[in-house]
């Protein structure tokens, strides 16, 4: 059996909630470190908590492993431990080969210096000599498509250029293990595709990638195995498709629990926002049976009902909705309706009916916008109400509801001879 490139055993790391106390613990820890004290660090001191506890997993050569978990689950802490930035309090990490962590792309860039100068510095940080970097420079410039900007100071780069250059430097320095943290979520579509292809190419050449992302569709399509961190512990490890569905259904549950708590508040704030323009009395979702719900199956009808009362007189007001998925990408946008706002006429009811929805499994936010005739925004809210889609496998044919952005009924047929159906 081959040894894994990354082996994590019973890893634990604690943090302190209060800064002052944390600094003081720091002083004491340095003291303990210098005297070589063998005192166990397994006990929590006042105000401390386990950011990671008893984490175990392995990554083998040529493997692309996903790391998922909600914010604060301990992903970044884990990455920092892996790159040797901070020391574990418990357990052990064994790493074979050179590790390259993209915790923050271009973190080492100095804004005053040019792209070229920064490339050399980044290379030197990772232990490359000037001569080695001379050879790599061409590749880096090509890959980042930055040749013409390479002698400009980095502070004049756009954020996309920053990311492109950072990614190009990192992947061209040929690590054995690459940690990619939410990189493929930035940059334009064509660069994202390129970055993704490059990652695949690196995998085939035998490096290992730990891919950290909130985008489950991307995780399940890229990675074969996945680690799900929850509150500092490994909740599940296994095939990515299984693990991402566990994560999704967990986050749906969590969102629902949150919504129950904040529901009243959310709606309340929605109709309080524009007292001089309109009052939103109600915003509710219902299915084809007319039952009020925030939980739908794929292909259900989703009916959005607004009950609102205008305060200000306006002509040709436009109502619009945006539906965003959990990574905040707009899935659909709709703005059909124009109406005149007539104050003091009592509440109006507006309905938007989405027949046979094509959303895939997950949580969605409905953003609600009121625009004036010229398209100027009078009122905006990104998440007026939330709903979730549970995939009903029995009615979706030839389709994996955890992948892609929308669900479709596809029909397949195999033909033996032209025109003859089997």
């Amino acid at each position, binding site marked *: 059996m081959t040894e894994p490139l990354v082996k994590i055993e019973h890893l634990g790391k604690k943090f302190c909630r209060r800064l002052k106390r944390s600094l003081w613990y720091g002083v004491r820890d340095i003291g303990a470190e210098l005297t070589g004290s063998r005192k166990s660090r397994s006990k929590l001191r006042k105000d401390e908590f386990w950011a990671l506890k008893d984490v175990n997993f392995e990554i083998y050569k040529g493997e692309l492993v996903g790391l998922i978990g909600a914010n604060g689950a301990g992903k970044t802490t884990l990455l920092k431990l892996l790159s040797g930035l901070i020391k574990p309090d418990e357990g052990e990490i064994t790493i074979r080969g050179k590790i390259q962590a993209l915790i923050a792309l271009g973190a080492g860039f100095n804004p005053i210096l040019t792209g070229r100068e920064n490339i050399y510095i980044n290379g030197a*940080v990772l232990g490359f000599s000037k001569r080695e970097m001379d050879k790599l420079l061409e590749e880096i410039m090509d890959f980042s498509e930055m040749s013409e900007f390479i002698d400009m100071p980095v502070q004049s780069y756009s954020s996309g250029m920053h990311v492109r250059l950072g990614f190009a430097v990192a992947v061209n320095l040929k690590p054995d293990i690459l940690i990619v943290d939410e990189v493929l979520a930035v940059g334009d579509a064509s660069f994202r595709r390129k970055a993704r292809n490059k990652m695949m190419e690196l995998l085939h050449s035998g490096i290992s990638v730990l891919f950290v992302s909130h985008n489950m569709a991307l995780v399940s399509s890229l990675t074969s195995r996945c680690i799900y961190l929850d509150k500092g512990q490994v909740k599940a490890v296994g095939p990515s498709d299984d693990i991402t569905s566990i994560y999704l259904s967990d986050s749906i549950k969590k969102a629902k629990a949150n919504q129950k708590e904040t529901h009243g508040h959310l709606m309340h704030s929605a109709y309080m926002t524009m007292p001089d323009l309109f009052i939103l009395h109600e915003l509710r979702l219902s299915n084809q049976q007319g039952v009020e719900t925030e939980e739908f199956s794929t292909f259900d009808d989703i009916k959005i009902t607004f009950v609102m009362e205008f305060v200000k007189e306006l002509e040709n007001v436009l109502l619009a909705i945006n539906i965003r998925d959990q990574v905040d990408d707009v899935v659909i946008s709709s703005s059909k309706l124009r109406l005149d706002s007539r104050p003091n006429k009592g509440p109006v009811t507006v309905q938007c009916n989405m027949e046979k929805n094509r959303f895939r499994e997950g949580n969605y936010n409905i953003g609600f916008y009121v625009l004036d005739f010229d398209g100027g925004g009078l009122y905006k809210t990104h998440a007026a109400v939330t709903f979730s889609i549970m995939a009903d496998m029995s009615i979706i044919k030839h389709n994996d509801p955890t992948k892609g952005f929308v669900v479709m009924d596809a029909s397949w047929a195999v033909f033996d001879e032209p025109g003859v159906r089997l």
Partner: protein
Amino acid sequence: MTESYEQKYGDVSNLEVTRYTPESRIRHPISLLKEMWHDLKASRELAWRLLIRDISAQYRQTALGYFWAIFPPLVSSMVFILLRSSTMIDPKKIGVGIPYPAYVMMGTTFFYLFVDALNAPLKVIMESKMILTKINLPREALILSAMGDALFSFAIKCILLVGILIYYGVAVSWTVVFLPIPLIGLLLMGTMVGVLLIPLGLLYKDVQSALVIATSGLIFLTPVAYLPSTQGTLGLIMRANPITPLLMGAKDLVLRGIPDDLPTFGIVFGLTLGFLFIGWIIYRLALPIIIERIGA
């Protein structure tokens, strides 16, 4: 699966193994020393790059550029020259037959080598906080580049100093060839104190503020612009001040010849090296703990 896997990617046993455990590295002194040596070697390229970066970035965004390097000793020298002209400083105590401005400029230039070396480590670390908390780099590089910063600023001051010495026609002793020894001593001593202050200085901002006040007071407790006085509290402080033998040694080598008190010089130099090494170990061991506290 395993077979095809090995065929495809080959053996991994030739890869370098890194292990992170909670145990203190000080329990394995031999491997700690090996790591320190390894990282020091690995630091050179990076230190050089950082130095070039710092120097060019630092002076690119200033209007007066390199003038800032000679500004502090120039101001201090002016103060001493004014003090003397108002007979606050007894010219006899200088004891050297060279024009006072040249003498003062030399003293302050040497003294500021110590001061720059003292301030540079914490300054470089503070400026590199972003990289330091995001990328695992050989951390020795930051100290090396801090020493480079101090040396660079000293080199600029030296140009001015040489100009002044030539202008006043100061005769220089042949022993000036040994001048690098006390200068390295001053550089290392400053670096030593600076490195020892890093762990606390990174956790508490108080250290940096205190450092500014301390160095501005220190110039009066060090025989920069005159010979060390032999009486009173000030004399006692000056003789106890570890900078004195190095600074006086440097001045002697330029103006008079071999310093009288070579043993003290040797002891101070040796202690500097020893404490610098201890400071290095503390720095290495403390940094991961500090990064954890400041880097969230």
